[in-house]
């Protein structure tokens, strides 16, 4: 069988492999010089790309559950984005087995056993519980998402309509499972970096961020694929809809970001404000206020006009701003708990680059495995005329 066209040329794939090597080197240097930075970098980067795989699947599931037709032409993109899931699962395992003590106060018996608040939370925040929750969630995601993708690609062979109905049912199950499991892991993986603090809107806020980022990456990958001459059937209507998703969910993220801030600011209770107090420290405060600008105000202005959602260059600018903005958002969730001042060195940058390369390579590999257009999808005709 002849090699299918992907998003990257073979020489570009070699560059990506070198980036992964650089990421590994950064991780090794980190483990040697500053283990807490290395593990925090792994937590941030792996959560970033794992959540892209997950939110890509959520996007797919939303379209199936709603019986949306416009999307059929593009569905191979989020399908291929989910290919990072096994890599991400492996890295969660590595972090869970080797890195917890360097990251989480509650995982360190020396500090946790003298702390009444942590003792009270020990039923939720403990090492075996962390590993078990992660294993259960990752396995559930893996099987549900693999089912969605396998059904979709099996339909290419025989065009059986039953696959679409099956995927609609599976999507509804996945969405419910995702809502519960994602809330759980977002508290355990990220919120527990500051285990004295809690916020009940945190999983929602995080979801707003990962979803808009997944749509941004999907749009970026689509634009890159079109740049390579693939998916020429995509019309302005598809870009417009993706632009609307970006616009709407960037606003949702801002709404949740502000809701969490407003209530904590208003009630002014020390056990709640401690999270923001850390982010108003020197160095962090500029990043903190830059966060709503890059994640909401700039995309809002860029995407407000109808024609800017159909214009590839403006859409590209908005996706790049959002993709960088989401990194900043996660950096502000993870690193103030680890470092006294913001720091961005070879360890953080190299590891993020390596994980990004791993994500892109997995995407490219998975995208080339299946035909780029789902030729027997019952909604394809509707999607082509969208």
């Amino acid at each position: 069988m002849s090699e299918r066209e992907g998003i990257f040329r073979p020489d570009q794939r070699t560059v990506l492999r070198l980036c992964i090597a650089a990421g590994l080197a950064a991780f090794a240097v980190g483990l040697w010089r500053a283990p807490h930075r290395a593990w925090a970098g792994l937590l941030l980067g792996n959560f970033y790309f794992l959540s892209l795989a997950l939110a890509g699947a959520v996007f797919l599931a939303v379209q199936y559950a709603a019986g949306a037709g416009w999307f059929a032409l593009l569905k191979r993109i989020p399908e291929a984005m989910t290919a990072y899931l096994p890599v991400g699962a492996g890295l969660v395992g590595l972090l869970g087995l080797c890195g917890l003590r360097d990251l989480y106060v509650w995982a360190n018996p020396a500090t946790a056993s003298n702390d009444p608040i942590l003792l009270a939370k020990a039923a939720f925040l403990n090492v075996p519980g962390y590993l078990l929750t992660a294993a259960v969630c990752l396995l559930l995601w893996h099987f549900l998402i693999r089912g969605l993708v396998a059904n979709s690609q099996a339909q290419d062979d025989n065009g059986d309509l039953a696959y679409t109905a099956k995927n609609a049912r599976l999507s509804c199950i996945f969405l419910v499972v995702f809502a519960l499991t994602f809330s759980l892991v977002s508290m355990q993986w990220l919120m527990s970096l500051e285990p004295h603090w809690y916020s009940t809107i945190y999983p929602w806020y995080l979801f707003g961020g990962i979803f808009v980022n997944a749509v941004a990456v999907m749009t970026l990958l689509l634009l890159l694929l079109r740049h390579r001459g693939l998916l020429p059937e995509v019309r302005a209507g598809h870009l417009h809809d993706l632009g609307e998703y970006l616009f709407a969910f960037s606003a949702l993220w801002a709404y949740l970001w502000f809701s969490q801030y407003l209530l904590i600011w208003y009630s002014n209770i020390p056990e709640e404000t401690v999270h923001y107090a850390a982010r108003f420290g020197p160095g962090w405060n500029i990043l903190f206020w830059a966060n709503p600008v890059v994640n909401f105000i700039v995309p809002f202005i860029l995407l407000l006009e109808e024609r800017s959602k159909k214009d590839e260059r403006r859409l590209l600018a908005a996706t790049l701003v959002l993709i960088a903005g989401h990194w900043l958002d996660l950096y502000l969730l993870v690193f103030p708990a680890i470092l006294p001042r913001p720091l961005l060195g070879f360890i953080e940058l190299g590891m993020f680059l390596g994980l990004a390369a791993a994500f892109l390579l997995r995407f490219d590999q998975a995208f080339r495995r299946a035909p780029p257009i789902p030729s027997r999808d019952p909604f394809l005709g509707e999607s082509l005329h969208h």
Partner: protein
Amino acid sequence: MNRLWVGIFDSHEHLLRATRLARQRGLTIHDTYAPFPIHGMDEAMGLEPSPLGWLCFLFAMTGLTLALSFQYWVSVFDWPMNIGGKSYNASPALLPIAFEFTVLCAGLGSVAAFLFLRRLSPGKKPALGGLGALDDRFLLALQAGPEASAEELRRFLQTQGALDIHEVAPDS
């Protein structure tokens, strides 16, 4: 103004196709009428982009400015109150009301602008009232002129699959 020739169609696809073709042939399209908005109709009729989006933005900005300045005036100048020791011009507290008022002004303003731009008002007689555009029919109204005679319009509508063709006065 010349009299109108109205073709009655049974689906929005037929209406859209007939409208596109009428425009390609250079016929004068008076207007189209349908029970619901049709995607792509602006383009098929060759309409200019609607100014409604920008008007909505303008109303939104007006609402935002009004809400922020009014709250600022109330809580800093007119009636300063100490709430939990926060400063009088505590901006986060102003935002929820500013947001709601922005949305309210944008929404009401857009509806008012739409009604004004389309010259619509409660109690207005529907255009081409008896022909079913308020029910389940899709109408294409063409105007006869130097580029096409009445007979040509009638034939065009017939070949496009119109169920029925009416000749009406332009103000009915």
